[in-house]
């Protein structure tokens, strides 16, 4: 694991004085927040402000340039990449991740149903539309059984019904004691305990 990230059996997401530098530019610094079990956080801010970088940092894909974070042991990242075999039918493609996450085949069926994809189980992933791909990403996240869900624009490309369905799945995860941190510019139908407004650093410093 990356230095600066401690992974414990802790049931909370804690960021302390986090800083992130990308391409020689400071995206954010001194960022601190905490989310307990059953709580959801919303990340907002203009494009390029570092929302995705923060999510990747918490997922352990980027090292923080300063500060540290405590994350639950199991986490799932839902970003703009599918990570499913395009050639395989959806059900088989999801089964790969189910096996890695120690989930049963029944859990695959359940996750597809929650994402509204059960009728596409036998269809190869390469034929999926934009919205269906997004739902497949969500199904992979539902399937993970992870405590913490890091969602990067989870409602992108979804129609109104699918957003409502997404809201149900998120609420269900929170009710089960999960934690969600989502970056979204589309309103998500759950109540957030925390809104993190990321701002471009130049503006922040100009206003001081």
């Amino acid at each position, binding site marked *: 694991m990356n230095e600066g990230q401690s*992974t414990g059996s802790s049931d909370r997401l804690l960021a302390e004085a986090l800083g992130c530098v990308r391409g020689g530019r400071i995206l954010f610094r001194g960022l601190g927040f905490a989310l307990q079990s059953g709580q959801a956080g919303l990340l907002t801010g203009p494009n390029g402000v570092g929302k995705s970088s923060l999510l990747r940092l918490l997922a352990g894909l980027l090292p923080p340039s300063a500060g540290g974070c405590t994350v639950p042991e199991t986490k799932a990242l839902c970003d703009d*990449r599918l*990570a499913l075999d395009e050639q395989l039918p959806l059900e088989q493609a999801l089964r790969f991740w189910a096996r890695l996450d120690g989930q049963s085949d029944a859990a695959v069926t359940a996750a597809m149903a929650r994402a509204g994809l059960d009728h596409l189980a036998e269809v190869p992933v390469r034929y999926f539309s934009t919205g269906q791909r997004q739902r497949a990403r969500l199904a992979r996240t539902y399937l993970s059984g992870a405590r913490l869900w890091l969602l990067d624009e989870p409602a992108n490309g979804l129609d109104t019904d699918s957003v409502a369905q997404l809201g149900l799945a998120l609420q269900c995860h929170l009710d089960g004691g999960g934690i969600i941190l989502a970056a979204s510019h589309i309103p998500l139908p759950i109540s957030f305990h925390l809104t993190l407004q990321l701002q471009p650093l130049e503006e922040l410093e100009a206003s001081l």
Partner: protein
Amino acid sequence: MISAIATIIWRDVRQSYASGGTWLPVVFYLSAATLFPFAVGPDRELLLQTGGGILWIAALLATLLPLDRLIQPDLENGVYDQLIVRGLSDEMIAAARMVSHWLAFGPPLLFAAFLASGLMGLEGAALGTLLASLAIATPALAGLAVMIAALTAGLKGAGALGGLLLVPLAIPLLIFGAGSLSAQGGSALLFLAAISLLLVAITPFAAGAALSAVRE
């Protein structure tokens, strides 16, 4: 952790065999071996003397073919990111990719070498040595291929660059591999095994470092 690695390797191997990518090096290998007797003529003595070396060069060239499909697709598709999120290390991912690549590349190549040796008139002890030297060297070739695929992933024109990088690194393998076919080849086979072990030990770490660098 072991079962996770096995799952990943099984997925990769199944994918290579299902996509037909496994047979491309084999067909290439056989066609290269077929061309050679046409080019130099059917002189049996000449073919016997040079055939083993030609089959070795063909094996090196066949290693280059799948370079752009080894790492790039999964990297672009976010598969490696998802594996890292699940707590696997870059080195482990690279090692698993090496094993799965060897499983999809080594045995078919040995089979192709067996067929092609007939065209060169190799038989008996010479055939045995050729197959042994290829069997010893293919894990190292798979390791080099994965390392170079990881180093060049995300670059434009990665295929040509990969060839330039791989050929010099594979020269020791070629020297001792083809050298083992000569009359005093026993020690060459041992040197080949030593180099192969060294490359197999080093390449997962180099490939892992490349995967971790490309993520940032």
